[in-house]
């Protein structure tokens, strides 16, 4: 056990699974970084350094750079997975999904069903999401809602270094296609993370705190923000349960419903665009299955229905923050 960053935690999970299973391969743009050049070969380890160190340990047969051809190399992950490898491929920013989505949602996601249960497609797509990086409209989206919409995909949004390691381990061991969302603002966040491998099962939410008055369900980086809000609420005498679903697909509906049945109130915090989002999804499930327990209107704290702006002041106003959550809780309790 030692302090590790979110970046290190992910790197360690991948390295450990590569040691454990020689069929785990890693590829993506500059996942080594330096191929074909005269300088360092492990120069980048991915654009923000998450895969750095894998090339020296595992060599170029297992850590591959790619041309900028997402359809080809993400599709190659699906084809490799269906034929016996367990690839971990990187779609650098999830914003780039638009050039390769077919290989994800029509191919990898549907093989098993279309082929009558006879295919297995154990692949992980690592991808970065989220605003707050001053990266503007095409490098800041959340988009896990879109992947959650698609049957056949598992969608993971880890909220801390500990979570990231355990969920990545599970993602690599899982026999279905997994989309693993890394929040780029969190790479330097640190916490205690066990050195040994461990897997966190999918579809099991965790409660970061338990309270009586309101249930706050938050996704990814928003879990930390929700906990900050809960601290403030506590000062005002309001006690909150905070639920981190960990995976939006499968979603741990039971835990969410139990919590709402205990508290009678629900606030969902999601940095996506609001329409057809995970926030709306969770809200609607509760409105359908825990209606009787509800004592007030469900509240959603999301980004507005706009692209992500560049100017830091606007971007800061774009993302949910503790104050907005506190306000929403107050409306839910009014």
């Amino acid at each position: 056990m030692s302090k590790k960053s979110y970046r290190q935690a992910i790197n360690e999970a991948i390295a450990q699974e590569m040691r454990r299973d020689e069929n785990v391969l890693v590829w993506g743009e500059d996942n080594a970084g330096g191929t074909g050049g005269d300088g360092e070969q492990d120069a980048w380890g991915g654009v923000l350094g998450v895969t750095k160190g894998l090339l020296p340990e595992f060599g170029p047969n297992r850590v591959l750079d790619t041309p900028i051809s997402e359809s080809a190399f993400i599709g190659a992950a699906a084809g490799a997975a269906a034929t016996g490898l367990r690839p971990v491929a990187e779609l650098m920013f999830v914003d780039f999904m638009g050039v390769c989505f077919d290989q994800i949602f029509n191919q990898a996601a549907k093989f098993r069903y279309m082929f009558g249960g006879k295919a297995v497609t154990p692949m992980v797509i690592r991808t970065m999401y989220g605003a707050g990086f001053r990266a503007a409209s095409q490098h800041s989206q959340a988009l896990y809602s879109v992947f959650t919409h698609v049957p056949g995909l598992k969608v993971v949004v880890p909220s801390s270094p500990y979570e990231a390691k355990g969920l990545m381990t599970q993602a690599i061991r899982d026999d279905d296609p997994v989309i693993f969302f890394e929040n780029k603002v969190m790479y330097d966040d640190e916490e205690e993370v066990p050195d040994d491998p461990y897997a966190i099962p999918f579809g099991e939410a965790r409660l970061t705190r338990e309270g009586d008055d309101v249930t706050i369900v938050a996704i990814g980086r928003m879990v930390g923000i929700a906990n900050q809000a809960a601290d403030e609420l506590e000062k005002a005498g309001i006690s909150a349960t905070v639920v981190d679903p960990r995976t939006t697909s499968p979603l741990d509906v039971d835990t969410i419903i139990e919590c709402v049945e205990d508290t009678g109130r629900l606030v969902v915090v999601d940095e996506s665009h609001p329409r057809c989002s995970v926030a709306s999804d969770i809200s609607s499930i509760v409105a359908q299955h825990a209606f009787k327990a509800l004592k007030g209107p469900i509240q959603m704290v999301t980004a507005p229905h706009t692209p992500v702006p560049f100017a830091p002041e606007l971007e800061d106003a774009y993302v949910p923050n503790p104050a907005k959550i506190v306000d929403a809780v107050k409306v839910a309790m009014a």
Partner: protein
Amino acid sequence: MQLSRDELIESYRVMRTIRDFEERVHEEFSGGAIPGFVHLYSGEEASAAGICQHLSDKDKIASTHRGHGHCIAKGCDVRQMMLEIYGRGEGLCGGKGGSMHIADLSKGMLGANGIVGGGPPLICGAALTAKYKKTGGVAIAFVGDGGSNQGTTLESYNLAKVWNLPVIFVVEDNGYAEATSSSWSVAGSQMDRAKGFGMPAVQVDGHDFFAVHEAAGEVIERARAGGGPSLMHVILNRFFGHFEGDAMTYRAEGEIARLRKEKDSLKIFRTNATQAGLLEDADMDKVDKEVAGLIDDVVKESEKATPPPLEKLTTDVYVNY
């Protein structure tokens, strides 16, 4: 690459099976027994047969919406294929895939594909598996002339070359993508495109099994030996419309009748094989009869077979969850 007598008969059987399968599906579709979007491979048999003759189960192929021929040539069970096209529970995909999604991974058949250009990226992955695991296998992506304009296909050319993968890209150029002529829609040429990505390429008459077989042998050999990807530009024709229901008014009058007369790969095979003294008419007559019986049987069985049970609607989405 000299084929044995048995191999030749087998190849002819593949072509005859494809032909009869497709002609019969055409009939049954017209009669309303078969639902859905169905794209037939009649006329193109020599391509699938000539190429897949070189392959075993360790070799992988990815097909297109026009997939029946590739499936048969790659060894998929014909009975289960027909059941699948009828949407039956005993079908190769349990009735959940249908004509455009027939697959049998155990045979190295990674699926027909409803997405034009869907296969080439997948096949790069299958080739990487073969290369990494040193199976000696190759991976082949079939695309149409129309599919050769899809970005996913073009990207795959580059990836296959850059990663030096044992891939063959087979462009089956039947002159049309739906109603649009490939003479218009394909700028440049398939051969020059291959060169653009540093790949060797070969152009071949896709009505001639022997020509296809020989050309395929060379590119497959190169791939198996670690020499990287190649492209085959196979020129051929389809005897039916784009899909069942297509009135084909975009084709010149009499074109199909002429093609059936002059460009029938089964007739051409028979002529060549007998003239070269490799087979006798009786060999092929025998196959014709056996295949006719087989197709009759599988259609009869498919008609009577039952649909998948309703609870199958929600199974097979995930391995677990």
